[in-house]
């Protein structure tokens, strides 16, 4: 590319009145500035539009959750604001004897807490071992995880369902069964935390080892305190996943309504049961699930962003 000569940033003008030489922004730059302003304005327009598009469904969801299922039921209507604001849906969800919602909520919460603790321990163990310890079979393990990851996850579910059934961990035992399934294979999701451990300088371990620390002590006393971001990221991810899982939860709890998680229960309201009648209650349920999970997520947003951007670069 031929190098063009740069246009000077300023013109020099002699100001006779004041008797000095002044620097004035040239005409060219001014039009460039106008161009810049136009670009920025259109970006603002796009960003505002995007924000509306991205947030609108959630605002609508909240509006609809306040439409009483007794008087304004029905899926979507050609109006957004409820005719009368009512808490009927919430009241029904939380107090009606026919509603399993609280039970589902409890189920999901229990699963999420157990998974968050156990999965974090497993993921950190695996990623630490693969990142900072050297032993025979390390590469083999990593390659095997890579190959196993190419099989659709649901495939294993068919076998696991029958296996769990043997031990009474389906239907009425779905909650411990699901915890077991989520946690057992979670060692395969070590990539992101391994990427993090890889970035901690090796010299730290070595100097501690010279001072007589065992590998376990290095892990617990030196690396863990440095790894707060990735620990929080792992806990956050493990805690949030069970809230959105439909495929495994629907299969394991198949047909046993009190043992659904929120995703399965609410899904069945809109796609299996009477969609028109349940829709406003679905919205209320959705709000009750989304608000605490979103609040937690936003509070720990920083760690999520670090994990995601770090993970994508390392693959």
């Amino acid at each position, binding site marked *: 590319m031929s190098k063009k000569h740069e246009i000077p940033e300023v013109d020099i003008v002699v100001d006779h009145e004041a008797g000095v030489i002044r620097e004035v922004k040239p005409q060219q730059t001014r039009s460039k500035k106008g161009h810049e302003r136009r670009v920025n304005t259109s970006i603002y327009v796009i960003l505002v539009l995007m924000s509306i598009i991205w947030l609108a469904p959630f605002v609508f969801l909240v509006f609809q959750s306040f439409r009483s299922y007794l008087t304004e039921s029905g899926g979507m209507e050609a109006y957004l604001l409820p005719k009368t604001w009512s808490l009927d849906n919430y009241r029904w969800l939380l107090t009606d004897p026919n509603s399993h919602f609280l039970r589902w909520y409890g189920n999901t919460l229990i699963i999420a807490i157990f998974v968050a603790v156990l999965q974090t321990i497993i993921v950190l163990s695996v990623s630490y071992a693969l990142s900072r310890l050297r032993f025979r079979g390390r590469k083999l393990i990593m390659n095997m995880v890579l190959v*196993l990851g190419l099989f659709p996850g649901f495939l294993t579910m068919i076998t696991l369902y029958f296996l769990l059934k043997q031990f009474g961990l389906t239907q009425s035992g779905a909650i411990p069964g699901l915890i077991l399934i989520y946690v057992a294979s979670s060692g395969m999701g070590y990539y992101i935390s391994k990427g993090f451990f890889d970035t901690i300088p090796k010299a730290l371990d070595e100097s501690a080892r010279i001072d007589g620390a065992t590998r376990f002590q290095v892990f617990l006393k030196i690396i863990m305190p440095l790894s707060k971001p990735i620990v929080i990221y792992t806990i956050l991810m493990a805690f*949030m996943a069970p809230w959105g899982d*439909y495929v495994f939860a629907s299969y394991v709890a198949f047909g046993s309504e009190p043992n659904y998680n929120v995703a399965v229960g609410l899904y069945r309201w809109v796609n299996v049961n009477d969609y028109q009648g349940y829709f406003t209650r679905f919205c209320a349920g959705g709000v009750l699930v989304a608000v605490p999970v979103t609040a937690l997520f936003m509070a720990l947003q920083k760690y999520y962003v670090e994990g995601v951007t770090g993970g994508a*670069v390392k693959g």
Partner: protein
Amino acid sequence: MTDLDYLKLSGAGKFAYNLGQFFRNLPGRLLGGLKGIGLWVARLFQSLGKNLKDLVVTFREGDWKTRLSYLVMGFGSCARGQWGRGILFFLFQTLFNLYMFFPNAQFSGCYYLAKLNTLGTVETYKEGRKTIYGDNSFFILLYGILTIFFIIAMIYTWRLNVKQNRLNEQFLKSGHKLKSTKEDMAALLDEQFHKTLLALPTLGVALFTILPIIFMILVAFTNFDATHQPPSKLFTWVGWDNFHQLLSTDTTSYGDTFRQVLLWTLIWAFFATFLNYFLGMLVAIMINKKGIKLKKLWRTVLVMTIAIPQFVSLLYVSKMFAADGLINTYLMKWGWISSPVPFWTDPGWARFTIILINVWIGIPYLMLIATGILMNIPADLYESARIDGANAFQMYRKITLPYMLFVTGPYLLTSFTGNINNFNVIYLLSQGKPLSLELSGNAGYTDLLITWLYKMTVSDTNYKLAATMGILVFVVLAIINLIAYNLIPSVKNEEDFQ
């Protein structure tokens, strides 16, 4: 072609050249692979011979403790004071024997192993009102595999046990002291720490991922479906029949449907990966542009949508696009359309809507990733480009894009893989609908292989085809990954780049 010629090619030209090279090298590579397998087999036999020789030598030169260990595992270790190791060996052997020769023959390893080749011959039948259960093919297959696992583990452990004796003898002879059990335990937190860390996760993956996958691979070669359901019915081996069903071209099979669903799966994965990628990058560039204020606000708005559980947002949005949904009713109220847009009932519209909604789902995520990477691009690159008189688009094409593509190569690959198996988005939005009589096996026009697999399992209990499809998904993904590994520089030389 010399390096210089190669560098002169445009981006697309380079890609085409690489692709051509890949296929040109394919025969050689396959041959190399075969040779590798041959070498591997040769090495296997070599090490087998070495091991056998070692076994004989150990027995001949060993003392009575060692010799007895051939029969009673762990005896030598116990006799030499390594109680911990010895007891573990012995326990494992006892467990193995108990499992293999369980008093109730119906539950012993030998029974399952013997029945593995037929998967059971004794039918379940009714005697009056009582059901007499015969063989259960499902458990024969499952525990048959488990038994084989167990036997391999046993052989390995037995060999380890003998080796231990040999090493211990040599060790003692040279005047050293053996490690006590206490020292062994301490080592588990030090030199052997990886074993402590990996023991439980490995066991979990072996039982909950590897065993089921092997089981399902084998199910693909049986006739396990709704009409052959244990415990009332037996199923058995049928060879490659299921693969014929899915791949053959005659009209009575699933071949046609399979090809259509596969094609849509690939189209979907392509758009879901690359459309989101470029749009997400664009949004990130806009937000990061100098002079744009409230950067944090825009980002937060988008990130918030990641936080809301997908089943809430996807189910709600899918209903927004329904015939009586918010969008149609409003468009009709404003008089823009006279009848509802068939978002979910017309195949073309349904596919378009799904891709569109997926953009809505995916942009915030990619915006985050792109933001992180964009900030790492050295600013002086842009500075010098600006001095050279490049405009915004040129800078994007020559600096931003190549950098992004290089850094996110591995991510694109995993993302493509993930999208081929993207169950949630499709199932929560459309359940694969619209259905059609032209497609067999309950498939719909928006079904991916994975959602079709799910339907086959849950509503048709057609396990054999589900398993076959799972294998084919694996094959497709393996091919894509293999090609990508050879074409994307940052995947191949990941370590170099960092």
